[in-house]
């Protein structure tokens, strides 16, 4: 039997899980993010969002341009709260 196919390595999400969510009706990257934490891991979706977008295209028949990528927010890499807290004047 073939091994699992991983789409999001940070959050450990397989193609099977994403396909299933799309079938259930989660048809945008934002919705998939809310349900599965897709792209919310430590790399902030740099690898997985593109692969997930391709799955969405295949399953929904949309073109790549039609699928919006969730907004990017800081912090961009894992930073400890202690470091961020050194910003005292705000």
């Amino acid at each position, binding site marked *: 039997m*073939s*091994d*699992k*196919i*991983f*789409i999001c*390595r*940070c*959050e*450990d999400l397989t*193609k099977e899980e994403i396909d299933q969510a799309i079938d259930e009706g989660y048809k945008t990257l934002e919705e998939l993010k809310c349900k599965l934490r897709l792209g919310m*891991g*430590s*790399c*902030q*979706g*740099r*690898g*997985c969002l*593109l*692969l997930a977008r*391709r*799955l969405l295209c295949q399953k929904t028949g949309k073109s*790549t*341009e039609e699928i919006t*990528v969730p*907004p*990017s*927010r*800081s*912090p*961009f*890499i*894992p*930073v*400890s709260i*202690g*470091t*961020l*807290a*050194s*910003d*005292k*004047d705000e």
Partner: protein
Amino acid sequence: MRIRNHPIIDFKKKREISFYFNKKKMYGEEGDTIASALHANDVKVLSHSLRYKRPRGFFCGIGKCSSCFMTVNDIPNVRTCITPVKENIKVMEQDKGGELPNKQFINKDKKRIDVEIVIIGSGPAGLMAALAAAEQGASVLLIDENHMVGGQLVKQTHRFFGSREEKAGMRGIELAVELMKKVVEYKESIQLMLATTVIGCYKGKKRHNLIAVQKLADGDQLFEINGHKIIVACGALENMLAFPGNDLPGVYGAGGVQTLMNVYGVKPGKCVLMVGAGNVGLIVSYQLLQAGIMVDRVVEAMPKIGGYHVHAAKLRRCGVPIYTSHSIKEAYGKEKVEGAVVVKVDDYCQPISGTEENISCDTICLAVGLTPSIRLIEQIGVRTEFILEAGGHVAVHDSSMQTNVRGIYIAGDSSGIEEASTAMIEGQLAGVSAATSLGYDKNASEVKRKCRSALKVFRSGPFGEIPRVGKEKIACCYRNGGLTY
């Protein structure tokens, strides 16, 4: 597994550095990162995953993915591929998200830096932008998250194409040294900050605001950086491919492997399957052979080879077959890659059953394209468009490399996937443009004109067609407010 004999790079034995991996004493060499030192000790499993407890290893090698996160001296989520190995550090495999130690290890106030031009990324585009802006007279802050400058130049042992003026015939590794020397000459006006990652950027009326974190020996330091002009040259990220077993340690980005062997002198494995016959796939395959590593074959899903013919011919002369219309079906192995199955694909990239072939290999390199790194500048409101020829979503910019947000410039791969040579010219153009918008002018219009005509020459050849169309579409988007009109 270290490389000692190499036709281009002299990998002398350097001073040994001892460290601990899961309490076991190991030795790295001066100049190693934690990940490269572990790899040299044949440690390929760096962590286990969150939910399925799968073994995970190195992937991109340049701090852009999250595959190499480990716990170092009790601090979790350290990007070991860009963190230098130090004497007696304790490196632990990290399970789950990692836990912070109770002890307070940060007690530093935020520091503030005000500067005219901030450049994010010190690769070919960033270095040239810094030099060009400094030559005009501006003061520059050059930031890079790696512990060395040069970006991806530092691993490019092949000679560049193009005209003599654009440094053709030189190798990337030589260019990085040459450019660094020039940056040092301008030390009055170029301030360098390494091991520093910009974690957020915010738009201001007069100045833009960046938040950055610098890795220091005694803990991280937070910086607020205010810059009148910001040039973003943070390159690109290697694409991942979806196939069974694609997360196994031993499945690496081709660029990651290139970093491992050409920068740190460490062999990625003994036998490699290369996926993708574009220039990256072909060049890295040849460089694997130079490092004494076997390349079983190159597979390419398209019906023809994507890269330059000279690179493909060199590889074939060395007896490495290139299979077009073939792709990887799956990778297998227990804790790391032990083999792969390749399959013939039809015109729609669908596998043809019955054509599977089993390959025994310990490394699979993915050279299946790059995606511009634009997630950071999306935060500041820079408009992006999906342009296939430029490698995906790219920041829309004008002919001076300025984006729709005033004062934010872009250059190199983040403005569309192309080559190091064009990244350098774009960097120069962005640097001069940013400096002139601050009022500096030392023959600036002539420099800009030269840059633009050099870019035109580069993109006029048959292999320049894709980037040329990409750039034309970007220009079109900039003028018309989008492709979807």
